[in-house]
């Protein structure tokens, strides 16, 4: 079974600074996706960034980028120029490909606070 670990339950960062959230996963699969989801205080979970395992290039979405190390099974999220609106729970998630339907496996989450 796949597992996803986020070793940092809570983190804080000053506004405008950079922060990195770590994620490791365990799988024997070769083809899969990795995700970072954000859950702000409004509870609405939204996708931040996605990485396909077959792609060597790290995904980037504006101020958000990942460091994907397939051999090490590591998938960290870097947030640059942190903003107050980045305050949220961040969940790392793994998805393997199946014939029908998919199951996403989520980590326990990291609570990020951006301080003014």
């Amino acid at each position, binding site marked *: 079974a796949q597992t996803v670990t986020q070793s940092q339950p809570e983190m804080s960062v000053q506004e405008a600074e950079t922060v990195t959230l770590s994620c490791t996963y365990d799988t024997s699969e070769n083809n899969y*996706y990795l995700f970072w*989801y954000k859950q702000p205080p409004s*509870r609405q*979970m939204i996708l931040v960034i*996605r990485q396909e395992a077959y792609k060597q290039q790290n995904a980037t979405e504006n101020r958000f980028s990942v460091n994907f190390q397939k051999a090490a099974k590591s998938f960290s999220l870097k947030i640059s120029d942190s903003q107050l609106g980045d305050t949220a729970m961040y969940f790392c*998630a793994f998805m393997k490909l199946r014939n029908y339907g998919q199951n996403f496996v989520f*980590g*326990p989450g990291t609570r990020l606070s951006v301080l003014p």
Partner: protein
Amino acid sequence: DVKVTQSSRYLVKRTGEKVFLECVQDMDHENMFWYRQDPGLGLRLIYFSYDVKMKEKGDIPEGYSVSREKKERFSLILESASTNQTSMYLCASREVTNEKLFFGSGTQLSVL
């Protein structure tokens, strides 16, 4: 934008009651999911459905059942609510082309 709507934001029920949590999506997605979110445990899959009337157990199905009579609606049923089912429940639907999950705003259920 895809919209996933959960019928209740907060719900308080008594032990032994039958509880229905409703979820509706408006984008014709085939796959829908029910997750339970607890502090320190992340999201755990209860059930998912890959088509109308088709369902599959997730990691923690005990004490729950689901119903999917129409494509847009996926219901989670607690047959006899217990205090250990107090939790946040999140519904999601999956967009295949982008491998993206769209979530509802969650239902915080308290069982007293």
